[in-house]
């Protein structure tokens, strides 16, 4: 049973991680919590559903939805964050404006799709052909979703490490003023950060939708709070940390249930996060100093 549970946790953790890297990237660069990330995650799942129902192949739908999510991210920044950034509005006010955008996105989705759960014609991951491997079983689609998540995170890692854009993003995250002095175009870099973060969040939404064969208006609710736990576990602003945090969360959640503590699952999850924050305020991989509000 434990082997199957660890595999369950691994699959779960991959999507958590993919969602959280976008979350943490925006925090790392801008020091703000973007509570509209979950709304973009949801919008992308619906977009992929629409495309798939028009006959677009799933991989292409995933790609297109991720790009759309990225564009939404840029718009989100222009509408909700850039005007406040220009005024040095701090961390609290952007938090509220991101809540406002999340409500608007939810309302628009409701206008387009109604309240019903939408399902992909190909069925959920659980309905796909099952692969038996020793005592564990998983389906081909689950495996593909897992591999897609990993691949996307590797691409992000490559962008951050090896490209000029990645260097700019890291420079802005390190010290915005210094980066500007070194000639980094701040607004362009921030826009690119939002594109990348949101397209990854969107991809996580599509993969979640495929995994459970479901797109709903409020599918972002649970992952929004769990995503916070993930980025704290890993260390806010640390992409490696968010990946590790995603897998740790998947494992904690799965093992809590495996040991018969399903009723206490969320308390354990947030308890672990709380204790880690208390013991190590910068998270497992965070190196940044603490910031005042």
């Amino acid at each position, binding site marked *: 049973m434990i082997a199957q549970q660890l595999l369950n946790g691994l699959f779960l953790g991959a999507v958590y991680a993919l969602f959280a890297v976008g979350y943490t990237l925006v*925090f790392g660069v801008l*020091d*703000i*919590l973007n509570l509209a990330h979950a709304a973009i995650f949801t919008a992308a799942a619906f977009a992929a559903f629409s495309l798939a129902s028009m006959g677009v192949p799933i991989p292409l739908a995933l790609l297109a939805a991720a790009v759309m999510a990225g564009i939404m991210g840029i718009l989100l920044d222009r*509408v*909700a964050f850039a*005007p*406040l950034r220009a*005024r040095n*509005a701090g*961390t*609290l*006010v952007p*938090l*509220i*404006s991101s*809540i*406002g*955008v*999340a*409500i*608007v996105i*939810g*309302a*628009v989705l*409701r*206008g387009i799709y*109604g*309240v019903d759960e939408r399902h992909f014609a190909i069925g959920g991951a659980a309905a796909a052909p099952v692969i038996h491997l020793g005592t564990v079983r998983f389906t081909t689609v689950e495996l593909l979703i897992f591999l897609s998540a990993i691949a996307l995170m590797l691409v992000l890692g490559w962008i951050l490490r090896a490209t000029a854009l990645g260097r700019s993003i890291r420079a802005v995250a390190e010290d915005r003023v210094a980066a500007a002095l070194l000639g980094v175009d701040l607004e362009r870099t921030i826009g690119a950060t939002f594109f990348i973060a949101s397209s990854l969040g969107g991809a996580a939404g599509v993969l979640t939708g495929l995994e459970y064969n479901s797109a709903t208006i409020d599918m972002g609710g649970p992952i929004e*709070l769990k995503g*916070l*736990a993930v980025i*704290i576990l890993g260390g*806010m602003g640390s992409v490696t940390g968010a990946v590790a945090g995603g897998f740790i969360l998947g494992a904690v959640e799965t093992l809590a249930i495996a040991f018969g503590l399903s*009723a*206490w699952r*969320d*308390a354990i999850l*947030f*308890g672990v*996060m*709380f204790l880690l*924050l*208390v013991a190590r*305020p910068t998270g497992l991989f965070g190196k940044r100093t*603490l*910031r*005042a*509000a």
Partner: protein
Amino acid sequence: MNALVDFYAKHSRLVDQIGVNAIMALSLSVSLRAGQLALAQAAFMGIAAYLSAILSLNAHWPLLASIALAMLVSALVAALLAYPVRRLRGVFLAIATIGFGEIVRVFANNFSITGGAEGLSGIPNDATTPVIYVGLALVAVALFALSRTKFALAVSLVREDEHAARSVGVDVGAIRTLSLALGGAIAGLGGALYAHSNFFLTPADFGFGRMEQILVACVIGGVTNAAGAVLGAGLITLLPEITRAVQAATGANVDFFRELVTGVVLLGVILFAPAGISGLWRKRA
């Protein structure tokens, strides 16, 4: 006068909700004024709500006594929470305290004394409008009185620069703990009044959604003054009913209309008045 009586007869629940939400927004403003983005207000509210309800239902305590103890316990919990999070600031503090709130909610779900998800019903509905508004007035007066004390000075110094505050002799840890405890006590009042004006409690009443509501009310009203918190709470509480009236008047018969307007209003206020509604009024004055 008759129009007023008639209005109250039709909307007394709404009036009460504004009062309770205003108290909650004020409770959050206390820690925000000390620069502490501590988002556990919904949890303090829940602890106090359940405690005062259980005291009334099981021990038949009178209303005021149950409110007093609920406030005390809620303040104590807040003060205790201040210790483990003493090294956390900004968004880190926010997330840790949100996590604390989730843990409290899971406990409320699993304890039999709270009734779990099936809730706690039959709570006496004795927090009438005058009781709620006397509570709100007392909080406002207390905060105003405090604003002229050394404590208020220390709070603003901690918000501006903790290190410099220490260098002039401010015990930053004590001020943080005190401001959290004071916010906890006020949230306790709000929670107890909520319990006694709603007949029924369920853990979902005190989740992240509630915390968001309190935070939004506080920030769009304006963090730095009591009037702002009350205005913000008023707007947030009235918005669903205002949009309902607008929807009826315009015949905009679409389900998502109210949600859309709510989001746009929220965004508009925060973008055009980052210091909140009360900030707008101040600028002009």
